[in-house]
């Protein structure tokens, strides 16, 4: 007797061959007393009988060997248009009627694919097959057909072929499940999917239904709970900009809705709800006797389990293979690539990278092979990596000079110096506002509709600048030219060692800090001034005390524009609004579009300190004392009292190093305006494509390549062609963003190279700003949501960019996972004379808030003194 439709309570509903992996798992959960929405399953026998009625040609294709994309499309069309025999139709509709009769309001369903090959331990097939929400009785059959057809999407075919699953073995059942109008949805893992750790239960949740979360359209809240006690060990409340509301959406209205400002940074789950979810996930794990990845939905206080499957983790073989050769992550850019670039950003910025640089998994890598080929000394892989990544070699005597390459190198250097001498000379003594004219240039390019995103990038980076282009058109070139900083600093160190050996090692870094005109510091001062303006106005102070960040933004928008705070805020946004967190990524909104980060910084400042600590004054005094000490040391040398040559030379090196550090930081400030223009041009194009229904969802453009966007604009591609690509690329991006990028590709390094960090009491990195300080650590992953940072605490962060500068006003030290001496964290920390250690791998994981740590900015070490501050 054929079994065409089964309820999940049916004894046979756990047979994978009959109901598919997903339905079998749900039936299993139900059997263990867990709450699952009522559902019936259209079994694989229906699918097989339906396929049996197809033409012989299609049947052979479905059962046969490799399927090309064209053949896949033909099969899909065949499955969508072939007739279903009346007997099957009647059975399905009768099952639906029975289910509907059981539940008063059940007129709408979630229709989910449940293939026999999916949700197994070897392959999850996550996101490969179709799911439809809010299906009504009238559209049920059409959706069931679409689920069958989704067995032959390009990605599902590719997935089966790469995982060695025969096409003929795959059969599709369909779950017809009562729709849960979720208030909050999420995914929980009974083991950390990234690390495999069994002690933690990880939960990610967002508002509304789970589609936005699993598609990667929203960054979810992230909770880590202790397996035994269920207590929340860490929480990250994300900025949830969009949601898929838990209600049917009228035709023509976009499925994705904007989250109300008040809810964006509000936690989606209370502690007791997290605890309940943790218990449910553990029950699911017990039911299957293996770590589980569980999708759930919260409605009226009840948590429904929608899906459970074994954790297949983030498998390395899901990601593209690395390029051939040996590569090391490109240090100067690493702090800008803490998350991978989206495909569009990668396409736009990666296309013209010089040979030797390449993007892999959205991150920039430097070719060691090319470095070794160009180097005048013979280098091993480890030595080349030490130079590229650490900027040092442990044993200089071990290096062997290559005379031929040395001669070629000197000639090359001379050629460079002579041919680029004019440009180097032009950037030698620029006033602080010399690049200000770039703003007009940016405005002109923005207003020029003839220039697309790529052309705008090309024009603004100066790659096709005319012969007599002013320096204000070339901030990128200025930025590259400012690397001369290294030369002056190295020279200063040599002189100090020779003429003032009694000075501490960190003297050079202290002497080279300070000085007006650093844009990042000015931005920090701007936030401080805004906080003062807010403090002086009781009404504004009330906003920050009692309202959420989103509400403050709304209130400011509608407030009296002549109010002192509002005026100052608008001026701040007008000047610095092109900046953002992760500002190299064009998919990230700029402060001008979304200034909530600015409000969060002001709030952090207001909450953390009534009066700013006078760090800058202290730093100035310290530098002054050091200069006096240096002058005394140098004055003992022969002839110095009368001629002062050594002192002049030292001061020249100091001034040059200071100037080029400032030039590098400031030119980046202007250069980053380019990314805003490129972003706005992309948004213009995306808006046009959305209006023409060529794209369906805002933000999707960033998951296409520039050529594909152009083809969509010309009509050579349509939405159906790119829909699956966007989805796959989003999921790939999520997988990549959850992985720590490998620091080397194509070879392994021994542990003594300091590239890999082990969780010991002494963490090692690079000293970016000298000094020692012992204090309480505060881990901040997002300055907009993880504050406040109390005065005297040590900031521990995954990376820093200008959005973090205000935190340096209250911090007494900083530990950053990525970066180098010239990174933002180092530059600002030196300005404030606070110790800073950068490139401390996994610092945010190993150090937790409240730990007592001691940082040594000279040695580049972080020592964990006590697990908890006394």
């Amino acid at each position: 007797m054929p079994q065409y439709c089964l309820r999940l309570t049916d004894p046979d509903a756990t047979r994978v061959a009959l109901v598919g992996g997903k339905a079998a798992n749900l039936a299993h959960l139900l059997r263990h007393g867990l709450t699952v929405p009522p559902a019936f399953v259209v079994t694989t026998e229906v699918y097989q009988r339906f396929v049996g009625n197809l033409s012989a040609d299609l049947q052979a294709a479905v059962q046969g060997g490799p399927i090309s994309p064209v053949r896949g499309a033909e099969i899909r069309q065949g499955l969508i248009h072939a007739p279903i025999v009346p007997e099957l139709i009647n059975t399905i509709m009768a099952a639906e009627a029975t289910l509907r009769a059981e539940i008063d309001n059940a007129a709408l369903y979630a229709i989910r694919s449940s293939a026999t090959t999916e949700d197994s331990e070897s392959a999850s097939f996550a996101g490969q097959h179709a799911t439809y929400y809010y299906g009504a009785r009238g559209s049920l059959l059409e959706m069931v057909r679409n689920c069958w057809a989704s067995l032959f999407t390009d990605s599902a075919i590719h997935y089966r072929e790469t995982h060695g699953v025969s096409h003929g073995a795959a059969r599709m059942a369909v779950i017809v499940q009562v729709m849960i109008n979720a208030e909050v949805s999420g995914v929980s893992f009974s083991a950390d999917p990234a690390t495999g750790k069994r002690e933690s239960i990880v939960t990610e949740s967002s508002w509304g239904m789970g589609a936005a979360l699993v598609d990667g359209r929203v960054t979810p809240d992230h909770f880590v709970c202790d397996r035994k006690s269920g207590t929340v060990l860490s929480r990250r409340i994300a900025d949830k900009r969009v949601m898929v509301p838990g209600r049917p959406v009228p035709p023509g209205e976009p499925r994705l809705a904007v989250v109300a400002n008040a809810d964006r940074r509000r936690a989606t789950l209370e502690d007791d709800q997290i605890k309940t979810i943790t218990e449910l996930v553990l029950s699911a794990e017990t039911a299957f006797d293996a770590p589980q990845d569980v999708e759930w939905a919260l409605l009226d206080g009840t948590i429904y389990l929608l899906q459970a499957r074994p954790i297949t983790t983030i498998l390395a073989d899901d990601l593209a293979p690395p390029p051939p050769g040996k590569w090391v992550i490109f240090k100067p850019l690493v702090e800008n690539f803490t998350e991978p670039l989206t495909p569009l950003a990668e396409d736009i910025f990666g296309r013209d990278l010089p040979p030797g640089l390449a993007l892999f998994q959205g991150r920039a890598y430097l070719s060691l092979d090319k470095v070794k080929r160009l180097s005048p000394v013979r280098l091993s892989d480890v030595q080349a990596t030490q130079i590229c990544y650490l900027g040092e070699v442990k044993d200089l005597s071990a290096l062997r000079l290559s005379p031929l390459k040395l001669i070629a190198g000197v000639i090359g250097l001379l050629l460079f110096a002579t041919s680029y001498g004019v440009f180097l000379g032009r950037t030698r003594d620029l006033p602080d506002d010399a690049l200000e004219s770039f703003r007009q240039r940016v405005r002109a390019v923005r207003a020029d509709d003839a220039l697309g995103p790529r052309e705008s990038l090309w024009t603004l980076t100066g790659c096709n600048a005319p012969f007599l282009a002013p320096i204000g058109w070339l901030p990128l070139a200025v930025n590259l030219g400012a690397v001369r900083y290294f030369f002056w600093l190295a020279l200063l160190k040599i002189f100090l060692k020779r003429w003032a050996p009694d000075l501490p090692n960190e003297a050079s870094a202290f002497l080279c800090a300070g000085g007006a005109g650093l844009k990042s510091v000015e931005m920090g001062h701007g936030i401080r001034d805004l906080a003062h303006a807010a403090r002086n106005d009781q009404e504004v102070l009330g906003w920050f005390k009692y309202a959420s960040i989103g509400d403050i933004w709304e209130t400011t928008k509608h407030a009296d524009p002549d109010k002192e705070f509002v005026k100052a805020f608008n001026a701040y946004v007008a000047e610095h609004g092109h900046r953002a967190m992760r500002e190299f990524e064009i998919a990230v909104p700029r402060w001008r579009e979304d200034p909530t980060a600015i409000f969060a910084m002001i709030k952090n400042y207001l909450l953390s300190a009534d009066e700013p600590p006078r760090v800058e004054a202290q730093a100035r005094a310290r530098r002054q004392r050091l200069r006096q000490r240096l002058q005394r040391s140098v004055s003992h040398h022969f002839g110095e009292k009368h001629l002062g040559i050594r002192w002049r030379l030292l001061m020249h090196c100091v001034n040059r190093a200071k100037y080029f550090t400032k030039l590098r930081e400031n030119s980046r400030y202007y250069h980053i305006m380019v990314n805003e223009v490129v972003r706005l041009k992309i948004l213009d194009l995306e808006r046009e494509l959305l209006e023409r229904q060529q794209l369906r969802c805002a933000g999707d453009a960033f998951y296409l390549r520039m050529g594909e966007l152009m083809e969509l604009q010309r009509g050579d591609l349509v939405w159906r062609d790119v829909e699956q690509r966007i989805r796959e690329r989003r999921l790939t991006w999520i997988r990549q963003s959850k992985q720590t990028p490998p620091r080397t590709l194509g070879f392994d390094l021994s542990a003594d190279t300091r590239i890999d960090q082990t969780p010991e009491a002494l963490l090692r990195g690079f000293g970016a700003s000298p000094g020692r300080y012992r204090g309480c650590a505060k881990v901040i992953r997002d300055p907009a949501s993880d504050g406040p940072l109390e005065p005297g605490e040590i900031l521990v962060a995954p990376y820093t960019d200008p959005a973090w500068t205000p935190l340096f006003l209250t911090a007494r030290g900083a530990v950053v996972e990525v970066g180098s001496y010239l990174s933002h964290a180092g530059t600002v920390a030196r300005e404030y004379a606070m110790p800073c250690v950068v490139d401390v791998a996994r610092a945010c994981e190993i150090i937790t808030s409240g730990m007592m740590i001691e940082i040594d900015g000279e040695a580049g070490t972080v020592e964990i003194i006590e697990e908890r501050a006394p």
Partner: protein
Amino acid sequence: MIVKLVVIVAAFLVSMHLVIALYSLLDLDWRKPAHRAIIKTKILLAACLFIAVGIISHDHRPYFAAGIGFFVTTHLLHYWGLRISVMAIRWWRRKKMLVQKP
């Protein structure tokens, strides 16, 4: 020979600084007093140096001219070199992409 070489190098350097000083007219804003002071200093100093070196190396005029010529060549090399290298990188990337992604 050494004198001739010194003249070539000096002519190269001072003509470079004169051009850098002239570029400051383009790079900086004459209306701003701070910028104006920098422009004036740069041009005056570079022009004086250029004239002085020109006068001193009067007896070696062809080598003085060679130094200037060498500077002009390298400056053009900088501009065209940059453009050509950018074009070459684009060509190389495109070629590579064609190979990898047919």
